[in-house]
């Protein structure tokens, strides 16, 4: 049974990675905590839902369109709203993203109603046998997606000119600007990229569980735990943090009972922050290799 919790938590952790990655990217590059991350996730799920019910395509296939749309939305939000606020400091950005959270939550309710929706696909109802235990196929897909996203983001940041520009802008916006990097553009792209990555996380949430207008905040809290554990803004830290939180949740739930699952996760969040605010793995995206 313990082995089962480990395995299940591990795969579930993959899902957590996909939801926290966007937060990591934004914090790593812009030093901003995006309080509306939950709404980015849920918004993507709604978009996928709309597209899937219009076209009857597979939700994961819909991502091909949803991710670019989320990219554009993220880009525009950053350029039009957040970018002018950057000089005013973190607090201002916190409040601005908080305003976005309120607006987005309400809009979801107005547009889609308040019922819990979920995305359907054949693989959400099947399992895969691993070491003799059955794990939901969608979790396996999530883990693969997580690995794909982390490695992909890493490659992008490391090898593509755009990625290098992102890292340069993260490390020293002034120096970056003076070698020809359009820093606001890079920030906008980063935010858009984070939103596009979150589109994957959001769609996976919709497939694995369900979502309503107000579900976002619980995923925001989950994401916080993941990135705090991994070291705020660290790419590989997010991967490790997500997997660890997944395992921790499942194992803790099995030991002290599922009703204490959240208590343990939040207590863990606080303890990690107090003991090692920089997290346990690695450094910020912008400066991490």
């Amino acid at each position, binding site marked *: 049974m313990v082995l089962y919790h480990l395995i299940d938590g591990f795969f579930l952790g993959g899902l957590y990675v996909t939801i926290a990655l966007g937060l990591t990217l934004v914090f790593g590059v812009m030093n901003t905590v995006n309080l509306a991350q939950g709404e980015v996730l849920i918004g993507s799920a709604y978009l996928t839902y709309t597209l899937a019910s219009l076209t009857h395509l597979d939700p994961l296939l819909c991502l091909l369109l949803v991710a670019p749309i989320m990219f554009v939305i993220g880009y525009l939000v950053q350029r039009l709203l957040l970018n002018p606020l950057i000089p005013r400091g973190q607090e201002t950005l916190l409040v601005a993203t908080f305003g976005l959270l309120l*607006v987005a939550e309400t809009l979801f309710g107005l547009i889609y109603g308040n019922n819990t929706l979920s995305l359907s696909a054949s693989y959400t109802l099947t399992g895969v046998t691993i070491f003799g235990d059955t794990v939901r196929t969608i979790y396996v897909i999530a883990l693969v997606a997580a690995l794909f996203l982390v490695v992909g983001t890493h490659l992008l940041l490391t090898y593509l000119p755009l990625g290098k520009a992102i890292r340069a802008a993260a490390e020293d916006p002034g120096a970056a600007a003076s070698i020809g990097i359009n820093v606001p553009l890079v920030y906008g792209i980063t935010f858009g990229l984070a939103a596009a990555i979150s589109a994957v996380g959001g769609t996976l949430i919709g497939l694995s569980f369900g979502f309503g207008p107000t579900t976002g905040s619980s995923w925001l809290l989950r994401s916080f735990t993941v990135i705090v554990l991994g070291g705020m803004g660290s790419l590989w830290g997010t991967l490790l943090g997500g997997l660890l939180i997944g395992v921790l949740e499942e194992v803790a739930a099995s030991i002290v009972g599922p009703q204490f699952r959240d208590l343990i996760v939040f207590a863990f969040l606080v303890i990690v922050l107090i003991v090692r605010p920089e997290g346990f793995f690695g450094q910020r995206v912008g400066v991490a290799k």
Partner: protein
Amino acid sequence: MKTSPASAARLAPAATWWRSLSRLAPWLGWGVLGVLVLLAALGPLYLSAFDLVLAFTLFNYMTMAQSWNLLGGYGGQFSLGHSLFVGAGSYTIAVLLLHSGLPLLLDLVLSGLLAAALATLAALLLMRLREAYFSIGSLGLAMAALTWMLNWSFTGATSGLNLPPAATLDYSTLYYLALGLLVATTLTIVLLVRSPFGLRLMAIRDDQEAAAELGVNSFPVKLVTFAISAFFVGLAGGLIALNKLEIEPDSAFSMNWVITMIIITIIGGIATSTGPLLGAVVFFTLQQVLQNSQALSSLLTGLLLILIIRLAPEGLWPLALKLGRRLGEALVSRLDRSGSTTTATALAAEEAVRGRSTLSDG
């Protein structure tokens, strides 16, 4: 008042008039204060039961935002965990009323004290964290407390507690309690901010390292600020429980409390002592007017927040002061040019009073 020397010379009569008004300001202030205290104290005489309930809720909003502002505004510690203290206050008074024979007022004070004790503990834990880390840490603590309360059978777990019917106070008593708490909170915070302690607090906010090199020990300052802020929020939580008579974790520890405090403070003006009061009026009015369409209400609140942070990040109160001062100056100069200082309107007088105190509005 930033009239340049040259223009001041040109506008001599009006400027004199202006200055003499400013000198009158404190007396004007005392006068208005007296009238208002009287008006508020006599509330139950001319207000309906429903108005009393509204005022009760509004006063609590003001108290909570004011307290949050002490830590978040003057102290620069952007707490996302203040819901914890609302819940702690609510639960303390409920538990005491149910299990102890202590008088109600003492229970109320104890609920504030317990919140303060919890805050001291929280401050010890979160002391090292700054900026986003502090915010997330405080949020984590509040969420941990909520999940704990959801499972604690002593406080009824998810069902929560029901206050004994004997604890039912009439609306005018609740009104006076909330009013008293608001006045006490505002006075305490205004005095505190003006005291050496307040100076130290703001110095830490502006530059903790520089403050340390000038002999400011940030540790006790942060600790006490956190405790005081939580004390008043805890008292407000106790009052809320006394009004609702029924509490359960999800609403007592709801994130909505801290969200409300932040929205009110930001809208009204962070790190000003009038801002939270004004913000509460704006927020509460919006809530009441639009209570038939909650969606529109929260949509507008969100948009208002974004607009404020984008266009007037200091908040409405400093904005109003700025506009008022500009208007006042324009009026003075116009009056002076036309040479008639006789038609001194009440409006201009008020602007003068307001404009004068901007400089001191920390």
